[in-house]
């Protein structure tokens, strides 16, 4: 099991999380995820995830004219997205805690 496998399950949560602090466009979001330590996240996965979250009604978009280069489509969390982030965040924390204690009980170093 490598990071790529794990990412598939939690990429939605990660994308929602980085959008909570600030709106962003695709490449910007990708860069923030990488800076946060998710080096192996795939470009196409992030774009696809953004599309899916938007289609699910968790994100809104708006276009910002760029002074240099093309106009950019920015994504921002809406109310539904913030709710989803809260729920998914809690779920992840409890899941992570469960996994941590499971590993601790069997003497696995962190």
């Amino acid at each position, binding site marked *: 099991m490598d990071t790529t496998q794990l990412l598939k399950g939690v990429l939605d949560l990660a994308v929602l999380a980085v959008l909570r602090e600030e709106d962003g466009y695709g490449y910007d979001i990708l860069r923030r995820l990488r800076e946060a330590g998710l080096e192996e996240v795939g470009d*196409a996965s992030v*774009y*696809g*995830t953004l599309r899916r979250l938007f*289609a699910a009604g968790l994100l809104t978009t708006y276009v910002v004219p760029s002074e240099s*280069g*093309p106009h*950019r489509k920015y994504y921002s969390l809406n109310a539904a997205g913030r709710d989803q982030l809260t729920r998914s965040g809690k779920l992840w924390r409890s899941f992570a805690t469960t996994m941590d204690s499971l590993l601790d009980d069997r003497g696995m170093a962190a």
Partner: protein
Amino acid sequence: MTVAEQEITDYVARVRAALADLPPGQRDELTEDLADHLTEVAAESEGTLVERLGEPETYAAELRAAAGAAPGSGRNLDQRVASAMARVRGRLRAMDTRLGPPLGYETASDFLRLLRPAWWVLRGYLAAMLVTVVTTGGEFGLLPRFGGELLAGLIMLIGFVLGSIWIGRRSARLTRWPRSVVQVSSAVLVVFALAGLVDAEDGRDNDYYYDQTSVDSQYSQIRDVFVYDGEGRLVENARLFDQNGNPIRLGYHPDCPSPLDVYGQPLLRPYPYCPEQAPFGPRGPGAPLLPASPTTTPNPSSTAGLTGTPMPTATGQPTAGPSAMPSGIPTPTPTR
């Protein structure tokens, strides 16, 4: 369009081709900011997009999976053809880029684009030559003729070349139909030019033949001159002069080696060059003579070659003999 822009366009086209089975709206949504994204990737990192992001088809599969779209399994023929075309186009572009630097340009097509005006001129010339072939039939050279008239042909050539340049400079603005017409006629002219080249190459073998007939002269076939006296004896060391005293030179030194000029002047070398090849009679004054009967017409049936050379049978007509044979001289008859 730069190389990087071209690469981005190709990449987008291949991703879109791989997503061709999705509803158009969904496909557009998935790929709408792909070009912008690729621009940022290309600006940020070294290497090609494929090195950085993987093959476009892989990218498309990842995009599709992350977006939760239906997996692209059942691709119909159109989509397969479209993706194959996109792949071929990408490969051609790559070759274009690779062949450019050896030519001293960024891409090979940059170099070829510089040659376009030359092609326009050549196209005008080819069109004029096509009209030449149609109007004058088979016989023509390198210059165009209109119905065999050179001047009219040259005027036509100038007009066609100018017209071809005019069309070439406006080809980008042409609408679909005129553009197709230009392309088809250009293709016809290329085929015509290739046929002309093949024809010219075949004509090389005939050059020898043309040389021979073009210098057609009454005496061009003469290689040696044999003079016979009134007795039918071969005269050796004969010399021929015209009314002004100028020596008459006929033929050229035949292949038989003869004692070269005792006179030191090749032009004065006497006839015949090769006495042993005399068509009639004995060799020279020293040889046994033929009892010729100057007043009687020769009997064709009784003649035969003396030195193994068969006599021409048409000796009843002296002019039908070798042209060096003066008419009125009786044909010698054999004695042995």
